């Protein structure tokens, strides 16, 4: 079914000029403004909720993984395996796994996907803090928590932020696929557009999500710079 719609979409864009498609797309932005606004809002929720929960889970889990090997092996292992599952497959898997369709399974699938970069970056960020700094910290009498709070976290903060940025940008793109299991968002336009063979509808989903990704990348990049401790900036 995907293959069929893809083929028709391709023939369709090949038959019309890109300029024509854009004109029809701009018309659509005006006429379907209300729908676009709702879809945009839904899309943001599809990103913010999973990424927000992912931050709350992945950072503590990443920290625990640096402390206990019993956490490290399964958590980091899963993170690495999870990353290799294609995103569409993960979303589609929600149905046979018994989560059904709608927003909830979409959030769950996106959450699983969002955790991975943050978890990995938290873990590597902390473990790559120079071992001599850790020895100095312990040698001066810091407890494990003090060392985490005063040394390891400040030094790995930029890396963790980079993980959050990667995760957000990936999820903005992946959330488009949520529409296949009825998750709503900008992806709904694309899915319908592919079904109806209407490139203006496809663009109505694709362009705003691309813009969203670019803005998120920029803003989070700024934030990353801002949280980098002054002593680390060159």
């Amino acid at each position, binding site marked *: 079914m995907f293959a069929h719609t893809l083929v028709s979409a391709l023939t369709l864009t090949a038959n019309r000029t890109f300029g024509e498609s854009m004109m029809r797309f701009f018309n659509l932005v005006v006429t379907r403004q209300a729908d676009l606004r709702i879809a945009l809002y839904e899309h943001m929720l599809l990103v913010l909720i999973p990424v927000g929960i992912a931050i709350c889970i992945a950072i503590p889990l990443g920290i625990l993984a640096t402390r206990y090997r019993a956490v490290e092996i399964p958590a980091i292992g899963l993170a690495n395996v999870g990353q290799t599952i294609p995103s569409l497959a993960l979303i589609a898997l929600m149905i046979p796994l018994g989560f059904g369709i709608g927003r909830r399974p979409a959030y769950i699938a996106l959450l699983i996907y969002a955790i991975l970069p943050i978890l990995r970056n938290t873990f590597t960020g902390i473990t790559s803090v120079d071992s001599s700094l850790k020895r*100095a*910290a312990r*040698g*001066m*009498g*810091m407890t494990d928590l003090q060392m985490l709070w005063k040394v390891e976290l400040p*030094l790995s903060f930029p890396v963790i932020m980079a993980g959050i940025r990667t995760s957000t940008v990936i999820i903005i793109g992946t959330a488009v696929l949520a529409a296949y299991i009825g998750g709503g968002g900008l992806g709904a336009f694309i899915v319908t557009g592919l079904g109806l063979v209407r490139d203006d509808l496809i663009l109505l989903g694709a362009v705003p999500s691309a813009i969203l990704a670019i803005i998120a990348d920029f803003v989070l990049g700024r934030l990353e710079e801002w949280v980098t401790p002054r*002593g680390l900036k060159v």
Partner: protein
Amino acid sequence: MVVFEDVRKVYDDETVAVDGLNLTVEHGEFMVFIGPSGCGKTTTLQMINRLKEPTSGRILIDGKDTKDMRNVDLRRNMGYVIQEIALFPHMTVAQNICVVPDLLGWSKKQKETRTRELLELVSLDPDIYMDRFPRELSGGQQQRIGVLRALAVDPDVLLMDEPFGGLDPLTRDQLHEELKALQDKVQKTIIFVTHDMDEALKLADRVTLMRDGKLVQVDSPEEILRNPNDEFVADFIGSERRLMSPLDVLVREVMLEDLPTLRPDASAMDALRLMQEKNTDYIAITEDETFVGMLSAHRLQELRLEEDPDSRVGDADLVTVTVDSRQTMMEAVHRLAETEEHVLAVMNRRGKLVGAISRGWLPDILAKEMWPKEAAGYEMEES
């Protein structure tokens, strides 16, 4: 006081890093650990603050087993300068210095005062350096801050692991001077690791030479130079000393020891007799272990024995020019020339008389340093 009792450290891979260490470092002593790379110096140091646990044996600090103390308390009360310096890059100089004060909950005001005090101690202007980050400091400045960080709460025991490694000789010398001045001022028990013999000789009260995790010799620098226990020690000293100019040797390596001594109320006749008996041209005058002055043959003549046979040595114009035993001969010679005296009293860092440098002996001393083989041969012929 730090006491090692049969301390042994075997790593998981069965490397024996420290093998049956028995040693007492006295309160206020500057102890230098030296030995080739991998002989177990860092391991020994890290067992004191329990970054590493001994496999067997005990380490006592002021009589208390370190095992019975809480790790963090033990460490906060002990300065630690780590081999890699490891200043925290995200903290300013002031924050780095105040890591331990912070842990102990000092007030902001206390911390600021202490930071200024410490920076001034190593001649870094607090107003310029306090708010800098480590990356904005030169290597030498970073090492100074590393040392200050260890001194922040004025700990009784200071562990220093090659704190001045990888510095140019000039900066190193300067830091040595600063550390010596500091030790003179604040009397800490310092355990200092190095693999540079010159550094050891210059700083130490006693030197501990290690090889393969074992003690080879524990002695004062003078004793190690004079009576190396075995070939290994001799080689270790030798290889370090070959390229030195005779004026670069330290006063304490070549000074005259076992000085003839008299009390100030001894008669001038006694002094004359003692000089003839010992065949020297000076006598140290001390009272209750305190140095009063040096009586040279010159000054003894001025007492005019014939006219006043009852005169006391204390009445003579005694020489009170002194030189620190850790200074170089360059300084001693300079001081002799400057004061036109014939003898200098050599004091250790606690201000105790330990020896003398006499004008008459100077050529011998220099010759021995410059041509050790010939000098030794010459001595043998004579005896």
